[in-house]
C-alpha cells in the first residue's frame, strides 16, 4: 500500500519523510512552546494588576477621607457643601440623585428593551431582524456625550412644553435619555437569551394548543429568565455608572430631594465637577472624590454580584 503510493507520486518525497524531516527542526519550536504559557500569563496579569492598583488607591485615599470626616455622618448626611470654610460632606444627595436617575432609566429601558427583545426573537421575520438588529447596535454605539447633549437641548425643552414646573436642568430628562441609551443593551442580551431557548420547546407548547403569546410568556420568557434578569441588572449597573448625560443635563445642585423636576447631582457627576475644579491634592475635598468613587464602586460591584447570583439561581436547565 505504502509502496504503491510512493510510486504513484514519485515527483515528491513521501509524507512520512517530510514529517520526519520537520521533526528535526523541532528544538526552536519546543522552546517557544514552553515559553508561551508564561508570556500569556504576563499579558493576562496586566488587567488584574491594574484592577488591584485602582482598588488599593481607592482604599487608601478613602481611609484618609474618613480620618477627616465621620463615617456615619457621611452616609447619613443630607447636606453636601464641599466648598468653603464650613464644608459638609453628606453623600445622601448624591445617592438619591444616582438612584432616582437609575430608576427613571430602568422604567424606560426594561419594558421597551424586553418588548423589543420579544419582538425580535419571537415575532420578527428574518428580514425585519436583519434590519433592526444593526440599528439597535448603532444606538448602542452613540457616544454618551451626544446623548447628554440630546437630553439638554432637545428632551428638556420638549418636556418643559408640557411640564411647566420643570427646571432647565433636571433629573427627569437625563433619566429618560439614559433609559433610551440602555434599551439596546437590555434588548440585545434578552434577545440572545430568548433565541437560545431551543425551538423544540416552542413546538411542544404549540402542539398543546398554545397561542403564540402563551408560548412567549409562559415558555420562552421563563426559560430565558436568568439571561433576561441579568440584562436588567447589567443595565442598572450601566445607569449607576453613567456620567456624561447626567453631568450635562442635570446640573450640579446638591439638593436632597425626591422631586424629579429639580436638578440633582449623581455620584459620577460630582466626581466630574470636583476633579474638574481645583481640588488640591491632600485636601478633604480631594479625598471626598475617592470616598464617592469607592461608594460607586461598591454599588456596581454589588450589582454585578447580584447579576451573577441571579443567572445561576434562576437558570432553567435545558
Amino acid at each position, binding site marked *: 500500500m505504502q509502496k504503491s503510493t510512493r510510486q504513484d507520486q514519485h515527483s515528491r518525497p513521501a509524507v512520512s519523510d517530510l514529517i520526519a524531516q520537520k521533526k528535526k527542526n523541532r528544538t526552536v519550536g519546543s522552546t517557544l512552546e514552553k515559553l508561551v504559557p508564561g508570556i500569556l500569563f504576563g499579558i493576562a496579569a496586566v488587567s488584574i494588576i491594574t484592577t488591584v492598583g485602582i482598588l488599593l488607591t481607592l482604599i487608601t485615599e478613602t481611609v484618609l477621607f474618613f480620618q477627616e470626616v465621620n463615617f456615619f455622618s457621611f452616609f447619613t448626611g443630607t447636606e453636601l457643601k464641599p466648598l468653603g470654610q464650613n464644608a459638609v460632606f453628606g453623600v445622601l444627595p448624591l445617592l438619591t440623585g444616582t438612584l432616582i436617575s437609575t430608576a427613571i432609566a430602568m422604567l424606560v429601558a426594561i419594558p421597551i428593551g424586553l418588548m423589543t427583545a420579544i419582538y425580535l426573537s419571537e415575532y420578527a421575520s428574518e428580514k425585519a431582524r436583519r434590519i433592526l438588529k444593526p440599528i439597535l447596535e448603532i444606538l448602542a454605539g452613540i457616544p454618551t456625550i451626544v446623548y447628554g447633549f440630546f437630553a439638554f437641548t432637545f428632551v428638556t425643552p420638549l418636556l418643559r412644553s408640557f411640564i411647566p414646573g420643570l427646571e432647565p436642568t433636571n433629573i427627569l430628562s437625563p433619566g429618560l435619555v439614559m433609559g433610551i441609551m440602555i434599551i439596546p443593551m437590555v434588548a440585545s442580551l434578552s434577545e440572545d437569551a430568548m433565541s437560545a431557548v431551543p425551538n423544540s420547546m416552542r413546538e411542544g407548547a404549540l402542539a398543546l*394548543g398554545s397561542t403564540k403569546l402563551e408560548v412567549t410568556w409562559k415558555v420562552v420568557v421563563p426559560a430565558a429568565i436568568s439571561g433576561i434578569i441579568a440584562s436588567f441588572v447589567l443595565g442598572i449597573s450601566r445607569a449607576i455608572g453613567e456620567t456624561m448625560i447626567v453631568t450635562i443635563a442635570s446640573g450640579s445642585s446638591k439638593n436632597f430631594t425626591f422631586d424629579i423636576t429639580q436638578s440633582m447631582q449623581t455620584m459620577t457627576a460630582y466626581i466630574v465637577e470636583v476633579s474638574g475644579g481645583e481640588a488640591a491634592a491632600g485636601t478633604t475635598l480631594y479625598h471626598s472624590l475617592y470616598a464617592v468613587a469607592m461608594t460607586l464602586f461598591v454599588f456596581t460591584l454589588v450589582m454585578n454580584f447580584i447579576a451573577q447570583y441571579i443567572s445561576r439561581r434562576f437558570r432553567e436547565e435545558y
Partner: protein
Amino acid sequence: MTVLTGKANAKTNNLSASTGSETENKKIVYNTKDLNLWYGEDHALKNINLPIHENEVTAIIGPSGCGKSTYIKTLNRMVEMIPIVRISGEILYRERNIFDKNFQVEDLRTRVGMVFQKPNPFPKSIYENVAYGPKIHGIRDKKILDEIVEKSLKGAAIWNEVKDRLNENAYGLSGGQQQRLCIARALAIEPDVILMDEPTSALDPISTLKVEELVQELKKDFSIIIVTHNMQQAARISDKTAFFLSGEVIEFAETDKIFSTPSDKRTEDYITGRFG
C-alpha cells in the same frame, strides 16, 4: 418472501381478517384527501389519501426523506411553521377540514396531541410540565390540576417513578422518563388523537419497550398515529401500517398483511431490508 417478525406469521394472518372486519365499524378520525405539499419547489407529499380509524394504532413507515414526518406534522399543522410550505387538498379531522379558516389551529391542537422525536419537556418542574396544558386552557383550580397531573402521569406509566419529586426540574429525569413525561403532558388535555413522531428514536431499548407498552395501553382511549423508522416496532405495536416512499403512500393496510403479504413489490423490498 422472508418473514421478518414473529407477529407476522401464518397464525396471525387469520386474526388480521377479523380485525379487518372490525375496523369497518370504527369511525374515521382523520381522512386525508388528495393532499399535496411542497417545500418551495420540492414536492414532498404527493396525492396522499389516507383514512385513519379511531382507537387504532396507525404506523407510518418508510425510508428517510419519504415524507412520513412531514405528513404527521401536517395533521396538526405544525408543518406550517416552515414559511416556504404550500399545501393543497384537504385533511378532514372528524369531518372538518383542518385548513378551513374557521377551524382555529389552537383548537385542532387541543384535540390532537403530539409527542416529538426528542423529548422536549419545558424547563419547569415535573408538575408544571403536566399542568401547563390544562392551565393555558383555563383550568386554575389547584385540586382539579392535582388530579389531572396524577391521572396523566399514571396514564403515561411514570407516576411511580416521579410521585415523590413532582417539584423537581423535568431535566433531572432520564431520556426515557422525559419522553413519558411528554406523553403525560399530551394526555393532560385529554386529546382525541395522539401523534407520535419517532418517539423512541432517541431512547435506549428498555425505555423504548416501556413506551411501546404504553402505546398499547393508550390505544384503548386514544387514536394513535406513530411515525417510526423501526419496522419491528411498527409490526409490534400497530394495527395498520402505511408505507411511504418519495412522498407517496405506496401501500396502506392491516399491519399483519403489510408484513406478511405486501401487495406492492416496493413494500416487500423495503420491509425485507433490500433498501432504506
